C-alpha cells in the first residue's frame, strides 16, 4: 500500500523511508534512540509512521542498553538508533556490553554525508572502525541500492548462530536519496553459515560418557537462555538425575528452586557448586565458556582430571581456556533435543539400567554434605539492613516471578545468589563486560516489552548514578519500574577487594556527597522511599509492589550494612575449591 503522506511517486522512497520500511519488515516494535544532525531525515520519516514506537532516551548509552534488555527479555533482535560522532561513541559502551554477552542487536548510526567522510567533518567519527572489535559485524552503507539488503543482513547476522550486535552506519546523504524499496526475503552469504546441528557421532559419544559417569556435573551458561533451550535442559537433567549449576548468565536456565540445582558457580558461587565442579569426573558444559570468573585459576582447575564434554554454537568458545575431550558444535536446543530423543530411543535401555546408580548416590551424598554447610547464611539478627535480606524479601514479595535487572557490583552478586530464578530471561545483567549503569535502562527495555510484569532494578548507589538521567525516560513512558538501591555508601565490590587484598586502604571507593535519592526521585515525578530498619524492608516492598503504586515508578533507597561482603569468594588467581567463606573471617 502506498502511504498517502509519501510525497514520492511509485515505489520510490528516500533512504530514510527505506530504513523505516526495513524495520517494519522485521516487525520491530521498539526503536530506542536519540536524534541528531546526521539522522534528522530518519527522524522525519519516524514522525510519519506508526509501525513501531520510538523510545526517546536521555543518553545514547541507555538507548543501546534498553534495546539490549529488550532482546534479552524477549529473544527478539533489539534496535537502537543514534546520530553520528558523539551519538555513536556514546553507544559504544552499550554495544560492547551486548557483544560480551552475545545479545542480538542492530544499531543504526548516522554518519556524515559520504563526500564528507574523512574530512574531519562536524560530528564525524569512524564508527565502523571504533566498533570493529566489539561487534559481531558492521557495515558502512555506501550506496542507497545496498541499504535494504544491508539492513536485512544485519538482522540476520545479529540473530543467528552465536548472536551479537551489528552496526549499520548510514551517511546522511543516503537517507535523502531516492530508490525503489524492495526487501530481500532471504539472505544467502557464502561466508556466514552457522552450524546448528551437532555431529551425531559426537553426541552419542557424549551420552555414553554421561551414562558411565560416577560423579557427573552439568554446567550451563547463557547459551541456554539465548538458545531457548531451557525446556530441553530440564528434561535432560531430570532424566539423568545429575547435579546442575548455572553461570551468572545462565541463571533461570534451570529452575533454581529445584533440588538438583546446586546454585551459581564461580567467583561468588556456592560451595556445593564450586566443589562439585572441581571434583566431578564428567563435566558437561552447555552454552558456557569457562571464563576466568567461572573456573578461577585454570591450572588449579586441571590439578584434578575429568572428562569434559562441551556443547556450544561457537566453535571458538570450545578449547579456548580449557582443553575439551568431546567438543560438540551446534545449537544447544538442537543438540539437547537430540540427546533427549536418544535417551528415549537408542539409549533408553542403557539409561534405564542406571549403571552407576550407586556411585551417583554417593556423589549426591557428598554434594548434600557440602550443601549442608549453608554457605549463603548471613546474620539475620542485625539491627542494620543486610542486603541479602532485602533480596530474599524481594523474592518473596514478587513471588519469585519478577524480571530482575541489575547493575554491577556486590548487589549484582547478591541478586544472583538470593533471588531464585525459576524461568529463563528473567535475570537481566551485564555479565561479560560488567558495565555499571545498565540496570535502569535494562529495566526500561524489559518493562516496555512486558508492560504488566513486575520489573525491579537491583542496584547500588554508585551504579545507579551512571545512568540516572533515565529516570526522566521512565517518567515520559510511564514505566513503573521499581528501583531497589542497596545503599552502603561505598562502591561495595571495590571496597571488598580493598579490604581483602589492599590492607583496608579504601582508595576512592567511598561515595561522598550522595544525593537525597527520595527527593531526586520526586523531582523526576516518581515515588521515593528511604528504608533504614530491617523491620521496614518487607512492608516497604509490599507497598512498592502493591496495587496503589502499580502504575508508578518507585525508587527505594535501602540503607544497608556498609561492611557486608559477598561470600563465598574465590580470590583472583585461586582455584574453585579455595573459596573464602563467611565464617572463616
Amino acid at each position, binding site marked *: 500500500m502506498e502511504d498517502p503522506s509519501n510525497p514520492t511517486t511509485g515505489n520510490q522512497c528516500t533512504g530514510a523511508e527505506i530504513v523505516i520500511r526495513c524495520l517494519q519488515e522485521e516487525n520491530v516494535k521498539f526503536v530506542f534512540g536519540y536524534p541528531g544532525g546526521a539522522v534528522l531525515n530518519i527522524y522525519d520519516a519516524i514522525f510519519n509512521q506508526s509501525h513501531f514506537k520510538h523510545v526517546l532516551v536521555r543518553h545514547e548509552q541507555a538507548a543501546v542498553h534498553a534495546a539490549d534488555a529488550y532482546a534479552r527479555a524477549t529473544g527478539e533482535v533489539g534496535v537502537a538508533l543514534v546520530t553520528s560522532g558523539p551519538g555513536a561513541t556514546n553507544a559504544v559502551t552499550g554495544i560492547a556490553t551486548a557483544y560480551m554477552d552475545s545479545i542480538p542487536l542492530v544499531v543504526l548510526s548516522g554518519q556524515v554525508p559520504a563526500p564528507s567522510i574523512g574530512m574531519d567533518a562536524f560530528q564525524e567519527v569512524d564508527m*565502523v*572502525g571504533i566498533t*570493529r*572489535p566489539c561487534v*559481531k*559485524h558492521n557495515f*558502512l552503507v*555506501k550506496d542507497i541500492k545496498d541499504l535494504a539488503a544491508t539492513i536485512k543482513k544485519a538482522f540476520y*547476522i545479529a540473530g543467528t548462530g552465536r548472536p551479537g550486535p551489528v552496526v549499520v552506519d548510514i551517511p546522511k546523504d543516503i537517507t535523502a536519496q531516492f530508490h525503489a524499496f524492495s526487501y530481500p526475503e532471504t539472505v544467502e*552469504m*557464502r*561466508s*556466514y553459515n552457522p552450524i546448528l546441528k551437532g555431529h551425531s557421532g559426537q553426541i552419542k559419544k557424549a551420552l555414553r560418557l554421561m551414562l558411565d559417569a560416577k560423579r557427573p556435573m552439568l554446567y550451563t551458561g547463557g547459551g541456554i537462555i539465548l538458545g531457548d533451550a531451557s525446556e530441553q535442559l530440564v528434561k535432560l537433567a531430570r532424566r539423568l538425575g545429575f547435579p546442575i549449576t548455572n553461570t551468572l548468565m545462565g541463571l533461570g536456565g534451570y529452575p533454581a528452586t529445584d533440588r538438583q540445582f546446586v546454585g551459581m558457580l564461580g567467583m561468588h558461587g556456592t560451595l556445593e557448586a564450586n566443589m562439585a565442579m572441581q571434583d566431578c569426573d564428567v563435566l558437561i558444559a552447555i552454552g558456557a565458556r569457562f571464563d576466568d570468573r567461572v573456573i578461577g585459576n585454570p591450572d588449579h582447575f586441571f590439578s584434578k582430571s575429568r572428562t569434559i564434554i562441551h556443547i556450544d554454537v*561457537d*566453535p*571458538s568458545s570450545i*578449547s*579456548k581456556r580449557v*582443553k575439551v575431550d568431546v567438543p560438540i558444535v551446534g545449537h544447544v536446543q538442537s543438540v539437547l533435543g537430540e540427546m533427549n530423543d536418544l535417551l528415549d530411543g537408542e539409549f533408553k535401555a542403557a539409561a534405564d539400567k542406571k549403571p552407576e546408580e550407586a556411585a551417583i548416590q554417593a556423589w549426591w551424598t557428598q554434594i548434600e554434605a557440602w550443601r549442608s554447610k549453608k554457605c549463603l547464611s548471613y546474620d539475620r539478627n542485625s539491627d542494620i539492613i543486610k542486603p541479602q535480606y532485602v533480596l530474599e524479601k524481594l523474592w518473596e514479595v514478587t513471588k519469585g516471578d519478577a524480571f530482575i535487572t541489575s547493575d554491577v557490583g556486590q548487589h549484582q552478586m547478591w541478586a544472583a545468589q538470593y533471588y531464585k530464578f525459576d524461568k529463563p530471561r528473567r535475570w537481566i545483567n551485564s555479565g561479560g563486560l560488567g558495565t555499571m549503569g545498565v540496570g535502569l535502562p535494562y529495566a526500561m527495555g524489559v518493562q516496555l516489552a512486558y508492560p504488566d510484569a513486575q520489573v525491579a532494578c537491583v542496584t547500588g548507589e554508585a551504579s545507579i548514578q551512571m545512568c540516572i538521567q533515565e529516570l526522566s525516560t521512565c517518567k515520559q513512558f510511564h514505566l513503573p519500574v521499581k528501583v531497589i538501591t542497596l545503599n552502603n555508601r561505598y562502591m561495595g565490590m571495590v571496597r571488598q577487594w580493598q579490604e581483602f587484598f589492599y590492607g583496608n586502604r579504601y582508595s576512592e571507593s567511598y561515595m561522598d556527597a550522595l544525593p537525597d535519592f527520595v527527593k531526586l526521585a520526586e523531582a523526576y515525578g516518581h515515588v521515593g522511599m528511604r528504608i533504614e530498619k530491617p523491620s521496614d524492608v518487607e512492608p516497604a516492598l509490599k507497598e512498592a509492589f502493591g496495587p496503589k503504586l502499580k502504575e508508578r515508578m518507585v525508587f527505594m533507597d535501602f540503607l544497608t550494612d556498609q561492611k557486608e561482603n559477598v561470600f563465598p569468594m574465590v580470590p583472583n588467581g585461586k582455584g574453585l575449591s579455595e573459596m573464602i567463606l563467611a565464617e572463616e573471617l
Partner: protein
Amino acid sequence: MKHIISLLMENEAGALSRVAGLFSARAYNIESLTVAPTEDPTLSRMTIVTSGSDEVIEQIIKQLNKLVDVVKVLDLNDGRYIERELMLVKVKATGPFREEMKRMCDIFRGRIIDVADGSYTIELTGTGSKLDAFLEALDKTAILETVRTGASGIGRGDRILKI
C-alpha cells in the same frame, strides 16, 4: 611453531582491517600478511605467517573463521605446501663490492634489476629462510635498503583453496 595460514575473504572495504584487528586484539603474533584480489574479483586471498603453540594456532583458525567476511581458512602446515616471498635489496656496488654483489646474487639465483654507478638492486624469490640466508651472507655494510613482500603460500598437488 611457525604456521602459514591462507584464507579467502570477501573483497570488501575493511576486510583487511578485521583480520589485522583480530590479531592485535587477541595478542596473536603476526610475522607477515599479504593480500590481493584473486581471479574472482569479489574474493581476496590472504596469506598470514604467524607463530604460536598448537592451541593458539587452533584458536587463530577458529577466530578467523568466525569473521563474517571470511569465506575459507586453510592452515598450510596441515599438509604439503610451497612458500614464496619476493625481496628487493639495494646494495653498494662500488670497488670490491661490485664484483662481490654480482657473485652473491648469482649464487642465490637472484637477478640484478637495476644498475647504478654506486649500487645494484637485486630481486630474489624464495622461502623466507632463503631470503634471510641471503641477507646473512651479505656484508652488512653493503646493504642500503631491503623490501620484502611477506610470504605467499599454496598447497602442493591436489590441495586447493577455492570456493
